[in-house]
């Protein structure tokens, strides 16, 4: 590692490397949940995360904007139904986030 790189590392805030979109607790909860399943509808996510409709909606919009989740329309009988799932990008981002956080805590001095 060069001296310049060392200085940059020293000046960095401890969690600079973390994906801020995922790091927010409610969104982390949503991402973790969507990571372990194939897909779920909005209501199931509301029940699992304990978020209100407005809150969940706002977080989902943010995750959709960065391309972490996809919305798929399906039919349940004759009714249209919206299923949500992680995109490949979202899955990779979540894995990366986990890896970095693990590393961060492992590297933390005792």
């Amino acid at each position, binding site marked *: 590692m060069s001296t310049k790189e060392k200085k940059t590392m020293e000046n960095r805030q401890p969690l600079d490397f973390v994906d801020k979109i995922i790091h927010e607790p409610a969104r*982390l909860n949503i991402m*973790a*949940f969507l*990571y*372990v*399943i*194939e*897909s*779920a*509808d*909005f*209501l*199931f*996510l*509301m*029940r*699992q995360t304990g978020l209100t*409709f407005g809150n969940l*909606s706002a977080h989902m919009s943010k995750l959709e904007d960065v391309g972490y989740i996809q919305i798929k*329309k399906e039919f*349940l*009988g004759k*009714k*249209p*139904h*919206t*299923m949500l799932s992680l995109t490949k990008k979202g899955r990779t981002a979540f894995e990366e986030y*986990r890896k970095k956080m693990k590393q961060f805590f492992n590297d933390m001095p005792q």
Partner: protein
Amino acid sequence: MNLKEIEKKAYRFTFTDGIYDLTYATLLIMIALAPILRELIGLSYILFLVIPAPLLLLLGKRYISIPRIGLVKFNQHRKTTQKKLAIICIILIPLTVILLLLTAAEIFPGSYGTLLGVYTVPIGAALFAIALLSLIAYFIEFSHLYVYGLTIGLGILISELLHDPVASPWNSVIAFGIPGTLLFIYGIIELVRFIRTYPLPKEENSNVN
């Protein structure tokens, strides 16, 4: 963050509505009433064994559970497990039915000579039913199925034990009807608790686009 635990929690959540307990209880009650129904309506009694329980499960999930907790599709691991389970059921369920039919027709004449022999087939059928349902319980991680296995297994045994002191059809009513009714009451309590905990969402929240 334990991802396995998150997945398990979500999976178990889909079983909290009491509908599986009600479905199985209905099946037990129908088995209990089968001898009476057979006397009353002949072979058509089989319809009562085959239709009410699956219908209750289907309608309960469709009109009570899904509108309250929504819909989820689990990952590949669960799908693989379900495929394994389907293969087990395809092999073992017809085998169970054949064994029960052979038992009913008293095809094993050698075993009826001794006191132990009388109970060999019911004990075998009971153990088989318990083992089958326990295996399914293990694969789908739904612990209530162990209880279901015990109720049907003990039901077969008790029904056989009561055959002489209590005439048919009452041996069947006691052996399957009592656990069936208890399980039905438990299912109703669970369902009421579920409906209270998860009321129907307001229209604008239920179908987000």
